């Protein structure tokens, strides 16, 4: 069954690139433009995996993950954060918020797919 990935990023360029890489790998991709939109879309449509940016208006990536995890139903949905910040402290921050893993921006499409496969059955 095709898995659905929710991609959240305020940059249209990023959304398009994620769409290109992920749909090319056979995933169904739905999009949101910031944390609030992400929470709404997730609750309206559901997703198997979430990929989210950190820096976004209205509600950032961390806020999104925390909000998402607050609902027990979402506990098992893997979330990957897109980040240009790959030092240990930032990773911990992501983990603390509830991220399953991360992808470093700008991302290599191959690594992106690998990361997705790593966290999703």
């Amino acid at each position, binding site marked *: 069954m095709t898995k659905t990935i929710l991609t959240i990023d305020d940059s249209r360029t990023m959304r398009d690139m994620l769409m290109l890489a992920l749909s090319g790998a056979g995933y169904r991709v739905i999009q949101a433009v910031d944390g609030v939109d992400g929470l709404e879309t997730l609750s309206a449509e559901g997703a198997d995996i979430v990929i989210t940016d950190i820096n976004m208006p209205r*509600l950032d990536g961390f806020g999104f993950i*925390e909000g998402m995890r607050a609902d027990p139903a979402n*506990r098992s949905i893997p979330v990957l954060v897109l980040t240009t910040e790959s030092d240990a402290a930032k990773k911990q921050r992501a*983990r603390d918020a509830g991220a399953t893993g991360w992808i470093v921006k700008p991302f*290599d499409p*191959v690594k992106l797919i690998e990361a997705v496969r790593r966290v999703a059955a």
Partner: protein
Amino acid sequence: MSETDPFEAIKVVFFQECDELLGDLEAGLLAMESGRTDSETVNAVFRAVHSVKGGAGAFGLDALVRFAHVFETLMDEIRAGRKPCDDLTVKTLLRASDVLADHIAAARGQADPVDEARSAALVAELEALTHGDEGAVLSEPVADDIAAIEIDLGADEFGFKPVAFNFAALDAPVETAEPELQAWRITLRPHGRMYANANETGLLLRELARLGETAVALDLSALPDLNALAAEEGCLTWTVELTTAAPEADIRDVFDFVETDCDLEIVRASDEASASEDAAAPESEPESEPEFDIAALLARAQAEVVAEAPVAPVEAVLPQLTAEIAPAPAPVEVSTPPAVQAAAAPVPAKAPAAVTIRVDLDRVDRLINVVGELVIQQAMLAQRVTESGLARSSGVSVGLEDLELLTREIQDSVMAIRAQPVKSVFQRMPRLVREVAEMTGKKVRLVTSGEDTEVDKTVVERLAEPMTHMLRNAIDHGLETPEERLAAGKAAEGVVRLAALHRSGRIVIEISDDGAGINRERVRGIAISRGLIAEDAVLTDDEIDNLIFLPGFSTAETVTDVSGRGVGMDVVRRSIQSLGGRISIASNPGKGSTFTLSLPLTLAVLDGMVVTAAEQTLVAPLTAIVESLTPRAEDIHHVGGHDAVIRFRDAFVPLIDVAMAMGFRTTPTVSATGVAVVVENEAGQRAALLFDAIQGQRQVVIKSLETNYQQVEGVAAATILGDGRVALILDVDALTANARRQASRPELKLAS
């Protein structure tokens, strides 16, 4: 479709997005400049630069990435509160945003690469602000600076390195490692936290299995009774025997995400060759097969764990193992993200974003044209029905009236699609102001208002040029130098105001400065020396001010292009007039001047009153009309013997014989049998236009005369009426202005 096509398309999207980001960037910086340094504003600026950098990295636009990176670094310091947001910083950031824009333009091939010295200089300033007193980078030769940046890039705390996209790699076969096999033992004991983040042991194990052959054992010995189960602690230990040729880094990589949320041990099996056999996990178990059965393992684990009532702690530890996670739709609580601090000054909550779609402009234009034709056809149909003698109450006539209403509604809706706020034009102005200020050595602050005022796209695009000219003029000629201003008791910094607003069905743009105003003596003198007015001409202050619009007046003394070319105000006026607009100036010596620009809201459609004069059908714009009346002989008087005026509401307004003014007739219209339409121009001055008759009111599609011919005085544009004939749309302002200047025009040339 080849891989590069969609990729190139995304590149286009990226540059479009850059335009928006630059706009946001500038808006944010200007807000910061005027004191609004709340977290939301600063973060918005950071995000803008961050997004530019991110996208640029994906496309390998190195120069842009490097510059954006330094910019972003400083912004990060500011948003984290580690660096202040003072005046010097903001002004540097503003200049940096200009250079960033130039880098973007160069990256998209629209401009030459940015001058290295200029870019490096700004990089140096940004770095100086970022690193404070600790070793500010000096503005030394360019090469050093760039080398320094590159070193930074390699080692910076973000670990950011531009990686150009390579979609082709997606299809590349996976490289296999060197064939040398190695045995490893991996011990994994997840903490509860790992599961909370939706990491699954099963997936980790599967990942390991990809590296080579694995044998997995599960140790449940640490699993306590249900009662003693601690919520946060994991109690399962997995041991994996892995045979692989992959390096240790690859193995560790598998656990990259979960490293700190588990107890992890990776050792070479050969190192442990003599390790004790009492290691918690036995070497291999019957369960282990080349393809181990996770399901069986998990089932076994599950069987060991009694999961009757969904106890919360159990759930926390083994969410994937229990089949019953009741997805109770608890309301999702949106916790306030720590990143967004409560702003000291309340930032107005943004209204929920309207859903928008992107549409090809061509399609909108085509739609508008077709709707325009629809309006014409509908009018023609109505005409023919009237001519055919059908009663107005007949079904056909009534149906036609309904049709007219519908058509009008369609037209309004379609026009609204193309309505755009003037913001897009306003946004280019701050940078222009900065540049002109720098070139002329003046200190300027630009204050804008009404950016959201909407106008048809066709008008918005044509606003930029005249606005630019007038702003340049205001700064170059309107404002005094800082020294002069101080001497005059003004603040050294001059203020230029740019405002847009709707007024009586038109859009009005005002550009005012608090400079010295128009030097009327000088203007008068120039006009006389160019033979534009007689030496002894008596002119009101207003009239003198407006002399600058006369063709032939302009020299390098009026408006200077920043590159030194002279652009006359008459050219500006002409370009405004070709849009059906008006421009005027009001000046207060010592205090400043205000240019007022008024334009129709759309260049496409007009509500008009259809009139006849000397057998010619004309259209007068409804927005200019105050009232129509039938003149009585006793209401008409003549000033000075021949200038006709008519009484209107306790005042006398000039009476203009349109047929004669347009040259359609040499004999005056008989006022008593005609109709007078009182109109008001931009300045609020009134006049009465005398026509033969009024035909009715209609919405007409505007056809420009300039397309195939040129501007004609007294005529704003043309339209095609129901009978297929062309009717001229009157330029009411020009008519009234003409009449006020010269009452009679004996040399009038008859239109043939």
